[in-house]
């Protein structure tokens, strides 16, 4: 086991990197080299790199509109989720640990439901009851809240589990803190990283979701990208890469934050909240 163990991880990691880097490199070449796809090869690896395609897309007013729709939807989704999940998760841990399994199961449901079934069912029903709701872009908020709920729950759950919540709350109370003060002075500051993490994960869900937006005919960023792919493939791909780089940076930052805030004795929990 031991000698084998020395070589294999490197091979696996090398393969994984190739698995990820190769397509990324291809994407980058396709997006930023002004060379027909057919002629892309080894000999012109460093030629004619340009960001023109991406710039055209970024200047497109439709892009700006779709980005603003996605960000607004993301903002309200984050608010709805945090207001719902922070108290739920805290209370599940504090008062009724036996409810935890149920809440966890409830929050897993959205992952189990195919989004297509969700959207067909929910939109079909709402269309007859409250058509005004489906007309608004914000009708995406409840769907995305459902989709991002497992990540939010998990992120908060990991943060709370690292805390020994019961004892901290008791300690704060015996030092004279009322319930409200316990919440503001002890719980929220210690969950800051989890909350930031949950927020970023939710934003990522909203910025990446295509199925529901397309079925509800909302002009979100992923929808725009899908259309742009036909009209201006280089721009669409450049935009995809840009989002990819930005989100990777974001998560690296959150990861570093978590690492810094965590006591060194719980290293295995550093990333748990980030991984779906």
């Amino acid at each position, binding site marked *: 086991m031991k000698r084998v163990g020395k070589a294999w991880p490197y091979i696996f990691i090398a393969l994984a990197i190739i698995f990820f880097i190769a397509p990324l490199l291809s994407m980058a070449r396709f997006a930023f080299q002004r060379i027909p796809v057919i002629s892309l090869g080894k000999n012109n690896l460093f030629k004619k790199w340009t960001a023109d395609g991406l710039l055209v897309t970024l200047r497109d007013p439709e892009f700006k509109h779709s980005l603003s729709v996605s960000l607004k939807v993301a903002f309200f989704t984050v608010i709805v989720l945090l207001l719902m999940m922070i108290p739920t998760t805290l209370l599940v841990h504090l008062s009724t640990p036996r409810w935890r399994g149920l809440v966890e199961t409830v929050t897993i449901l959205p992952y189990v439901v195919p989004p297509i079934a969700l959207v067909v069912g929910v939109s079909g029903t709402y269309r007859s009851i409250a058509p005004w709701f489906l007309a608004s872009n914000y009708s995406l908020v409840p769907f995305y809240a459902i989709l991002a709920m497992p990540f939010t729950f998990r992120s908060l759950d990991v943060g709370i589990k690292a805390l020994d919540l019961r004892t*901290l709350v*008791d*300690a704060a109370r*015996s030092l*004279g803190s009322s319930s409200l003060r316990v919440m503001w002075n002890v719980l929220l*500051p*210690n969950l800051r990283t989890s909350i930031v993490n949950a927020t970023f994960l939710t934003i990522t869900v909203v910025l990446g979701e295509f199925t529901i937006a397309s079925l509800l005919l909302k002009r979100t960023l992923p929808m725009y990208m899908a259309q742009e792919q036909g009209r201006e493939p280089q721009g669409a791909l450049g935009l995809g890469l840009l989002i990819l780089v930005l989100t990777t940076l974001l998560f690296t930052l959150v990861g570093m934050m978590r690492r810094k805030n*965590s006591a060194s*004795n719980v290293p295995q929990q550093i990333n748990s909240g980030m991984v779906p």
Partner: protein
Amino acid sequence: MSALEFINVSKNFGGVQALEGFGLALAQGELVTLLGPSGCGKTTALRIAAGFETSDSGSIVVNSTDIAARPAHQRHMGMVFQSYSLFPHLNVRDNVSFGLRVRGIHSDERRKRAEEMLDLVRLSDLGHRMPHQISGGQQQRVALARALATEPHVLLLDEPLSALDAKIRVEVRDEIRRLNRDLGVTTLFVTHDQDEAMSISDRICVMNNGVIEQVGSPRDVYNNPSSSFVAHFVGSINTLHKGNTRILIRPENLVLTTHDENAQWRGVITDITFVGAFTKISLRLENDDTPISVLAISAQIDNSITIGLNIGINEAAQ
């Protein structure tokens, strides 16, 4: 006037009687330990005093006032927990001054008081550290400083040493004893460890199944146990027969004899365990199958004492 008094306190957890007619009074400045096996109700009593649990009946009296109905944050108790309960987002100094901030003390005053308290637990150079950057023993000393910073009516300690290593445990134990003496703060200490209880307490309250078995000084409880439960739970003890009476004798109150033909008992040595200063000799009695043990200062055990030896046993002269 008692600094803290439990009067006839009872508590039932879903059919289990955790505490029944519990009554105990702590004098000002006294350190009293609740000692008992897990589930005996000692932690329940402490948590009822702290206000984390509400009793089904009875009163909790502090300075002549019944506080049983008061919520935890209005009781002004200092509490230290088994698990390190420092707030992870605050540095050591801010942890210590947390209770003062809640009480609206001005920040200069808070800082001064925190420094004093850290001085008291000899950690004044660690004020800027975060909790996870200091050791477990240091964390518990900071927790003590934090609990004492607001000058609480009573200091409540819930197995504060259980998570610590043996050596550190003794250090923090001595620290608690010193703080109790120097500050004169009334202290209620909960533990399941009899050595800990005996070495730290003014009085020990031995509990079992939600009721008090005995209250007394460590010497009292050890030398004059009021029940077989107390005798066996506090220290180890041998059951012997003198004629037809069954008597209980501590291992250190027996002596071995090789030349006394009329020894009170005779037995065969089954094991000799050297533990440094002392040696424990296990024996099996001749007429009786009961295993017993004798504890002696190692220097008094010579090489003639070996496993398998048939030897006389006498009660030591008191």
